[in-house]
């Protein structure tokens, strides 16, 4: 369990986190989603006591992290895959970490085995790929068999097999009743992994809800195929309704339920040969939530998707810019 109360962190004049409050519950995977520079890593560093909050407070398992008698057995964290001396071997790194809590060498071997580092454990970490570095960071996080696991961008640099492995791992950890707090800027990954989402943008919490609620909150879109799109478009027009022509006979309607569209079509004597309610993707929901909160906006990409309109492609470009590695 992680409880943050009014966390604020200001670096110089630049506010990184501005009054963040949330609770991460055990037994489920909580995703921490936000664009680059939104304050995810800073918040996680404050949880781990590495950064001192400018104001506010955060407790892990009921105490400040630093107040725990055996912190590694309470909380395991992957904050930065590079938090390892590059000249030391993975095995010796884990052994040194384990020694602080008298964690037996067997456990070191276990986490090396678990994270698939067996073949490279005796090699210098400096030669590791980004993915192997992530695995080592996860191994270190699991070393103390902790109740709470905090992972900052754990799938960064992992191959598809590794991504799947992390997804199954965090789900299994949550299923065991542990608290799992996972940050990412990749909504697609979150959609598959998290049960609950905390969305942060520009240092503020934008949403804190079960992932299903975040998806449902978005206006329902319906795909309509009709041979008279012009008539139907006019008939559906109204407050809060948007109709976009995707293809000559394909419309995407939002703001009107599927049944009401069918009724309108019936009244207008228009033939409809497809009427499909669309599940909003998390990506769309996320873009809606964060469109004003992206720190680094990209310029619009002209004419890449001419059917989508300029505003939309501009937004997609902003996500593309967010797909790189988090800088802080």
């Amino acid at each position, binding site marked *: 369990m992680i409880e943050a109360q009014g966390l604020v962190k200001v670096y110089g004049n630049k506010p990184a986190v501005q009054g963040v409050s949330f609770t991460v519950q055990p037994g489920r995977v909580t995703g921490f989603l936000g664009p680059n520079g939104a304050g995810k890593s800073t918040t996680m560093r404050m949880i781990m006591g590495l950064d001192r909050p400018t104001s506010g407070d955060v407790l892990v398992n009921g105490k400040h*992290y630093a107040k725990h008698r055996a912190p590694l057995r309470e909380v395991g964290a992957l904050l930065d895959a590079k938090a390892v*001396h590059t000249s030391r071997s993975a095995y010796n790194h884990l052994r040194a970490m384990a020694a602080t809590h008298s964690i037996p060498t067997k456990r070191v071997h276990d986490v090396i085995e*678990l994270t698939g580092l067996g073949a490279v454990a005796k090699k210098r970490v400096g030669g590791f790929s980004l993915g192997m570095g992530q695995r080592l960071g996860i191994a270190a996080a699991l070393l103390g068999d902790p109740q709470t696991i905090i992972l900052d961008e754990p799938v960064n640099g992992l191959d598809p097999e590794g991504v799947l492995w992390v997804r199954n791992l965090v789900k299994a950890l949550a299923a065991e009743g542990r608290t799992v707090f996972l940050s990412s800027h990749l909504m697609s990954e979150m959609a598959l992994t998290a049960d609950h989402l905390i969305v942060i943008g520009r240092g503020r919490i934008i949403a804190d809800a079960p992932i299903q609620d975040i998806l449902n909150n978005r206006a329902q879109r319906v795909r309509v195929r009709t041979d008279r799109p012009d008539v139907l478009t006019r008939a559906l027009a109204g407050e809060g309704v948007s109709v976009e022509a995707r293809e000559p006979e394909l419309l995407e309607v939002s703001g009107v339920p599927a049944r009401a569209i069918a009724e309108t079509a019936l009244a207008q004597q228009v033939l409809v040969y497809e009427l499909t309610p669309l599940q909003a993707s998390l990506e769309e929901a996320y873009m809606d939530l964060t469109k004003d909160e992206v720190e680094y906006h990209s310029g619009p990409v002209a004419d890449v998707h001419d059917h989508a309109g300029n505003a939309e492609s501009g937004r997609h470009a902003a996500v593309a810019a967010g797909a790189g590695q988090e800088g802080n």
Partner: protein
Amino acid sequence: MSAATLTPQAGRVTGHGVSFPRTLHSEWIKFTTLRSTWVLLATTVLVMVGIGLLGGWGIATGLDQMESAGQDPAAAGMDSSLLYLMTSGGLDFGQLIIGSLGVLLIASEYSTGMIRSTMTAVPSRLSPLFAKAFVVAVVAAVVGILSSFITYFLLQPILANYGREFGLDVDNLVQSMLLSGVYLAIVALMGLALGSLLRNSAGGIVTLVVLLLVLPIVAQIIPFDWVQDGVMPYLPSNAGRQMVMLETADGDLTQWQGGLVMAAWAAVLLAGAAVTTKARDV
């Protein structure tokens, strides 16, 4: 590699907590598992022994030549007590390597990000700093003492050629050889403190060299009395040099005073390192 191999006891918070001896053990593992540590330590011993032997051989040759030329070495300020000092004659160079080791021990953790792992495992922050201090001070002392004794024993056969060998029963000789270990320990602590304060290897090493080598030279060429009498003797390497003397002149710092002044430098720097380690974000 499946999640099923996780240990089943969820939420288990039993077992050992953090303690200073465990932190010390961890720091010892970290210290000994870097190849650079061993390279620097071996280099220190080699350099110190090498310089001590060369110095001893040179002095013995010089004394011999003066005597055979009918000169009195004492009139030129030379006597066999200079030979005794050669047991720790490599200290000036050895201190630079050991001091650098102290800087690197902590600055490399900041540059690689390792410090975040360290501070996560031991969040009280001061324990890892003091455990590092303990490890590096003890190792530096052992290296210093070892080098002095190796130098002593290798020097005797060389000096025997000149009939100038000496025993360990020379007044204060063993004390001086032991204190050369203390000298290196203090330098290592100064390096560690500077590395922690500056969080930067190059900056830490340069600052240490300024403190140990440059300041004494600068002070020497400033002709004011208050610098000569009030500053010079209290610079860390000058005070430390008094500590390893076999005998000190009247008016100079005694061995004890020199040692305490040098230790005060390390203590002040370490206190500063402790305060900033506690206060700053990692």
